[in-house]
C-alpha cells in the first residue's frame, strides 16, 4: 500500500472522538516519485438521500522523500455532526489521505461521545 493511515490512540481518551476534539493520525507513504499528500477529516452521508461529502479539516504535506512517515493532528469542528445511523440517513466519518488522483487511503472513524454511532432507538413518550 503506497499510503497507510493509522489512528494514534492515547490511553486517557480510549479512542473516543467527539466534536471539537483533535485527531492524531500516523501517516506512512512509499511512492515512486515525491508527491504532496492531502490528509483530511471527512464526513459522508448515506441512505435514501443523495450523498453529501464534507471535508471539515485538511492538512497538506509537501514531501520530497519518496517514502517516510509523519504524525498529523487535525481538529474536528465543535459543530461537527456525530456518527449517526438513522432510518433515512447515516453519517460516517473518515480520515482520508490523497496523493494526486491515484493514491489514497481511508480510515473509518467513529465520532460520538457514546463510543458508537448514535441511533434514534429511544422514542420517549
Amino acid at each position, binding site marked *: 500500500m503506497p499510503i497507510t493511515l493509522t489512528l494514534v490512540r*492515547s490511553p*486517557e481518551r480510549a479512542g473516543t472522538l467527539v466534536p471539537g476534539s483533535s485527531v492524531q493520525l500516523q501517516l506512512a507513504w512509499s511512492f515512486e516519485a515525491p508527491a504532496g499528500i492531502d490528509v483530511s477529516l471527512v464526513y459522508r452521508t448515506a441512505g*435514501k*438521500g443523495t450523498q*453529501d461529502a464534507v471535508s471539515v479539516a485538511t492538512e497538506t504535506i509537501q514531501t520530497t522523500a519518496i517514502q517516510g512517515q509523519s504524525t498529523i493532528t487535525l481538529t474536528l*469542528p465543535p459543530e461537527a455532526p456525530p456518527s449517526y445511523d438513522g432510518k433515512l*440517513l447515516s453519517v460516517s466519518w473518515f480520515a482520508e489521505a490523497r496523493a494526486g488522483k491515484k493514491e489514497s487511503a481511508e480510515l473509518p472513524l467513529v465520532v460520538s*461521545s457514546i463510543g458508537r454511532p448514535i441511533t434514534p432507538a429511544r422514542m*420517549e*413518550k
Partner: protein
Amino acid sequence: MNGHWITAAISLNHLPIGWLIGGAITVLVALVLITRALNRRFYGTSAPVNPDNPQDTNRGCSIVFGGIFALAGMAALFFITIRPFYRSQQAGHWPTVPGVVISSQIGESHSDDGTTYRVDIRYRYAVNGQTLESNQYDSSGTNTYSGYRSRKQAIVHNHPPGKAVTVRYNPADPSDAMLTTELPAGTFSFIWFPLIFIAVGLSIMIWLPGLEGKVGSRRPAKAIELPLAASEVDVAAVRRKRSGQAIGLGLFAAFWNVFIFCFGHFGEWTWCLLPFALVGLFLILATIHSTLQIFNPAVGVSFARMPIHPGDSVRVDYSLVGNIFAVRQLTFTLEGREKVTYRQGTDTRSETHVAWRIECYETSNHVHMERGNFNLNLPADAMTTFIAGNNQFTWHLLIKGDIPGRPDIKDEIDVTVLPKVDARSGGH
C-alpha cells in the same frame, strides 16, 4: 389552450429567419451572462463549466435545461403576444382597398389535446391592377389555431361569401393583408403562460446549479455553519409566520384557480380538467383553514439558552395570548427529524422521518395555559442539528392547541442542538 406554436412558427412568412435565429442566440447569450452574474452573486463563482468536474457538469446541464425552458417561453411569448401585437400596430398604418369575401368557414385542427380553430375567410382584393387573394383575417397569421370557437363562429357568420370588405395590405408586400387590426383572442389573456416558462427556466438556471453543485460533491474544508435558532420567539413572530403561510397558500391557490379558469373559459372545457379543478377547490379550502389559524391564540416561547446540548435540561417559559378559553388542551412536543432529498428521474423529491419525539409538557388547565414553564430534557445520546446539501437532521418544538370547532393551533419553533464541546479537547 392547446395553441399550435409549431404550426405558428411555420407560418412566419413575414419575418426573416435570420432575425429569428439571431434573436434566439442573442437571448441565449444574455441568459448565460445573467446566470453567470447571478451565480457569482449567490455562489461566489462564475467560472466556466469544466466537463471533468461533476459539479460543473451539473451546473452546465442546469443552464442548458433551464435555457431551453426559458427560450421556449420566450418563443411562446413572441408568437402569442409580441408578434400579433406588433403586426396589429403595423397594420393600423397600412393602406386599405375594397375586397370581397370568396369563402368563409371555421378551420379545425385535431390533436390529442382536442380540437382547435381558426377563422378561415378567403377574400379577393386588387392592388395596382393586380388581383390578389388572402385568407389572413387578423395578425395571428394564417396557420394559428386556438380555442374560442364561438367567437370565431360569430366572425365567420358576419363574413358570408360575397360580402364587401375593407382590406388592409402591406405596401412593401401587397400579398400580406388582413381584414382587421383587432388583436386576436388570447393575445394578452395568455401572457402568463409563456411567462411561467420563462420564470421556471430562469429559476432552473439560477437556483438549481447552486443546489446541484452539492450533489455527491466534496465541499472544501471550512468551519461548519449552522443557522442558530432564536432563544426567544414572541407572539408577533408566530402571527407573522402564520400570516406568511396563509398569504403564500392564498397566492398559490389564486394562481392555480385562475389558470384552471382560463383553461375552461377561453379554451375547451373537458373532463380532464376536473381533477385540476378539485385541486383548486382543495387549495381554496386550505387557504380558508390557514387564514382562520391566523386568528388563533398564539404562544410565545423563551428558552433559557440556545443552542442546547444533548443531555441538557433547559427551562422553557411560555405565554399564550388570545382567547385562551377556546383552547381545550395545550401540548409541547420536541421532534428530531431526518430529512433527505434525492433525484428520481427528473424530479427532486424529499422525505422526512421523525427520529425522536419527546413529549415535553401538556396542560388543560387554563391558569397554566396562559403562562408557565417546563423543562426541556434532551437525551444524552440525541443527534445534533446537522444540515448538509441533501441530508439534514433538525430539531423543532411543536406547539399544539386543541380548539373545538375551529382549526387547531399548530405552530413550530426551530431548536438548535449542538454537540457538547469536550473540555478535554485537544488531546486524543
